[in-house]
């Protein structure tokens, strides 16, 4: 780092020009299609904006209304539930699966890995439509299996019942989100320093102790990474909601993501929708800042 001090002004200038030249193509897209809309989003959130009318400045009115809007608060709650349930479950489930399959014979391991990854590549729309069929009240296989095995007394309208709809959405979300963590964990577990494990085993450690004391710390960075990507994924769950329940029944599956869309294109309240976007962005920014801090401290 002593070099930095001796870096001449000319060199700094050269580095800056070169740096921005390399950054330029990417910056155009990043600033143009992410940052600029974000700034616009913050700006319009202070206006009452709707279709085909000049925007009216309303100050913080949208934000004040937001925190009195029962549906928004419900959507916020649902979003939190989805994240709080799906993130740990995804992590634990994929860790368990990986810990079982990682030392199986090569083909078996990769076959399992591949199958668990299938729902990810199938695509959210195809996944949503097939689950909609499987959950169908009248011809769905869930009701068929449930009633025939006696697990449920009569047909349940899975997606049309307030009590089950959100659970169903989370279940589908889980199937589409464990694929990547499993791939990651399998390779992380394979990379664990074998000599340490062997040493511990010689010392009489149980498999369980081995896992927690030796392997777990070593796969910690992977876990953190998985936490980050799963959180992002869970927040972005939109297609499932839009295609399966439209936020219903009785707003039980509304998420902020869907509610923004709903406000924009069903109620034409652009300013209000933007205010929601801002609130959500703040929540996510805080969350990811925390996660990055955690990752850095490790």
């Amino acid at each position, binding site marked *: 780092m002593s070099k930095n001090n001796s870096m001449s002004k000319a060199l700094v200038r050269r580095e800056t020009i070169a740096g921005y030249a390399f950054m330029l193509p990417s910056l155009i897209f990043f600033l143009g299609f992410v940052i600029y809309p974000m700034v616009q989003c913050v700006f319009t959130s202070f206006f009452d904006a709707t*279709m*085909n*009318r000049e925007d009216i400045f309303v100050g913080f009115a949208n934000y004040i209304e937001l925190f009195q809007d029962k549906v928004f608060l419900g959507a916020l709650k649902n979003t939190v539930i989805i994240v709080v349930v799906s993130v740990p479950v995804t992590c634990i489930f994929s860790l368990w699966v990986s810990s079982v399959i990682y030392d199986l014979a090569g083909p078996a391991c990769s076959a399992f890995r591949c199958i668990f990854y299938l729902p990810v590549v199938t695509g959210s729309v195809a996944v949503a439509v097939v689950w909609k069929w499987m*959950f*169908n*009240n*009248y011809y769905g296989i869930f009701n068929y299996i449930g009633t025939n095995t006696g697990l449920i007394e009569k047909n349940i*309208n*899975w*997606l*049309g*019942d*307030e009590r089950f709809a959100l659970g169903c959405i989370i279940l589908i979300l889980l199937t589409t989100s464990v694929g990547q963590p499993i791939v990651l964990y399998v390779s992380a577990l394979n990379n664990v320093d074998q000599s340490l494990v062997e040493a511990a085993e010689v010392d009489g450690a149980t498999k369980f102790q081995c896992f927690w004391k030796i392997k777990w710390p070593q796969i910690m960075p992977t876990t953190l990474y998985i936490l980050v990507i799963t959180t992002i994924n869970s927040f972005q769950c939109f297609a499932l909601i839009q295609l399966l*329940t*439209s936020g*219903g*029944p*009785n*707003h*039980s599956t509304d998420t902020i993501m869907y509610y923004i869309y709903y406000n924009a*294109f*069903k*109620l*034409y309240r652009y300013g209000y929708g933007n205010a929601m976007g801002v609130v959500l962005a703040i929540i996510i920014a805080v969350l990811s800042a925390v996660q990055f801090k955690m990752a850095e401290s490790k």
Partner: protein
Amino acid sequence: MKKRKFMALALSCVMVCSLAACGSKDTGTSQPAPEPAPAPAPAEKTDDGAESDSSADSQTPTDTAADASQAADITLWTYPVGNWGDSETVNSMISNFNAVYPDIHVTVEYLDYTNGDDQINTAIEGKQAPDLVLEGPERLVANWGAKGLMVDLGDLWTDEAKSLIYDSVQSACKSNDGVFYEYPLCMTAHTMAVNRDIFEAAGALQYLDETTGTWTTENFQKAVQAVYDYGQQNVGAVYCSGQGGDQGTRALINNLYGGTFTNAEHTEYTANSEENIKALELLKSMDGINFDASIAGGDEVNMFCNGTFAMAFCWNATQEKNNADQGNINFDVLPMAFPTESGEPQLCGGIWGFGIFDNGDPAKIAAAKTFIDFMANDEKQAVESVKASNFWPVKDLGNIYDGDALMSEYAKFIPYMGDYYQVVGGWAEARTAWWNMLQQVGSGTDVKTAVEEFVTTANAAASAQ
């Protein structure tokens, strides 16, 4: 070196591709190239001696049509209004149009009732709204018209047109301050239907009057109970996953005890009246009727046709015709009016016609008006246009369904057509609130609380306009 080549290749790939996609934004599915006009425009109207009025009211736009400057590309977006949602039928009608007006190219997009509104709303915001849209006053007049997005169609509404088109339709096509945003084509009365085979087997036919197609609220209850006892678990469903087909649920609830949806002036929502609350409570308590938040009107129709339900609340002549044509129905369908206490059902009407989005291009607007005029007023085409919808004309075109047993059967419901309240303010918001309200009732919220909330939301939207 190899890498450089690859990069260059990749880049040029992107370049070429960008050329490819650059232009592909403007239009929808293209129509086959129009054949050259076999005859000048006026020749098409040789046989209009019988009704000089209609030729007169189509005169104005036709004159301008002869002008070469009328060449324009216009887009038409249709909702599935009968076969106006079917590309084959629409293409053939457009080639009729192009035979007379070869310079106007019409491209068509087909919308559905689930996402169609969202699609138009995004398109408006994306500055790519269609030129022409085929729908009813609730969207053209009360929604987009009220928001100032539509063109005033006053010049299509000549005095002749006003004298020909039925008064009820006419008043529905104009806004509260008297501007016409829709030029109507066809109309119908939405009914319900029962599966006659199941009703017969369950001994429930005694509760309804097959000739008039009416029944009383009390008999409706008995019939549903009989069908349920017969073993049909799902007799009917108050579907509420979205707004599709909500005219059925509205009509059902309003008719049962004679409630109304809005006041007579169409300024305020009255769904919280005692009659409506009583109706909702009745439906909630009935065996065999479920509030199903996982289906909408279109699903209900399909499930009625495949025998899952014994009754459909989202029904009309077109539903039966289309489903019968596609071989989806293998039982006897009995169309019925909604049950009432008084014996005088107030059916929910549908009026469909054209509206023009103001895209700021006078040439396109003129071309769109010519299109409307041709489709709705041309002697021969008007009949075909109406028949394509499988609904009834909005003016006297003679008996266009002569010899059509199905349409004759449904014609008996036209006199029951009730108030066309859909032009009330805040309609789009109210529709959304309506299915949310039904979902609430379905999941056990107290009926009174739910309808009060609905009315508050809807009236707030109405007064905001």
